[in-house]
């Protein structure tokens, strides 16, 4: 992975596989402290303690097509190789929370990349799932909640409708430019 946004997509795909109904994604940066934090939290099936302990080891996976799960180890590595740290908490039948922290100016910190595109993909391609996406940077903050969007649109217009998708694409990009200004 060359962009943190792709790691975020990948971790959110785990939430999807875990049957989550609601996923919260937050990217929060503090330029003065030179730190940024990514959190992905879901209300999916969670993991028991034994699984949780093994999950950051690249030879753990519950998938059947291949032995090695790489998503979580890659995300962990992205943080730990950029002066940051990584944390995963989970409760069986409750949900999972994954947190990665970075030193923004660290030479090995990957760029955030196309976070807007990833958010657009997540919210428009997963009709059965709701997302709360927060972007914050040194005092500026924006939140996109798909429950709010669905309420405005009503039941018969999906978020994937081309007109809605085009609107959301611009809406997300404009807000992210305003908040992050390409600094991440």
């Amino acid at each position, binding site marked *: *992975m060359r962009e943190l946004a*792709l790691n975020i*997509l*990948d971790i959110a*795909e785990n939430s999807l*596989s875990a049957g989550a109904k609601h996923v919260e994604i937050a990217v929060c940066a503090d330029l003065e402290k030179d730190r940024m934090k990514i959190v992905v939290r879901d209300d999916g099936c969670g993991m028991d303690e034994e699984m949780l302990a093994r999950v950051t080891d690249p030879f753990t996976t519950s*998938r059947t*097509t*291949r032995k090695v*799960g*790489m*998503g979580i180890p*890659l995300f962990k590595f992205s943080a730990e190789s950029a002066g940051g740290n990584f944390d995963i908490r989970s409760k069986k039948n409750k949900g999972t929370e994954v947190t990665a922290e970075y030193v923004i100016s660290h030479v090995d910190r990957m760029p955030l990349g*196309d976070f807007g*595109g*990833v958010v657009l*993909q997540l919210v428009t*391609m997963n009709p059965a799932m709701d997302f709360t996406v927060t972007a914050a940077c040194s005092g500026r903050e924006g939140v996109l909640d798909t429950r*709010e*969007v669905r309420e*405005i*649109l*009503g039941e*018969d*217009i999906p978020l994937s*409708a*081309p*007109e*809605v*998708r085009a*609107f959301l694409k*611009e*809406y997300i990009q*404009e*807000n992210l430019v*305003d908040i992050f200004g390409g600094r991440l």
Partner: protein
Amino acid sequence: MKSLEELRALREKMKSQTDNRSVAGSDETVIKVGMATCGIAAGARPVLEALLDEAEKRQLHNVSISQTGCIGMCRLEPIVEVFKDGQKYTYIYMTADKARKVIADHVVNGNPCKEYLIGEN
């Protein structure tokens, strides 16, 4: 800057238009893009975006595009599966450009892009 309030106006506009999107019948084409770690790392996102963009540009109403988990052949990602005319076609090592070609040649004109199909490389 855009606000969510504009969505209300958009909704009203969409409701007043007659919906010709619901005419999709048994001739529907289903397209799936593998979006697990292996697919994402290999570039599945630009492929998905190209498919959506091309389908939208051509106003294809009988095509459904979605993402799926690991298809089980990680080395061949990005993988795109096309279900059309009762058959399954597996395209491997996809790129945005190849994806556009699959829409044009296969989905629209009914000629599978043999050179991208699994087993042909």
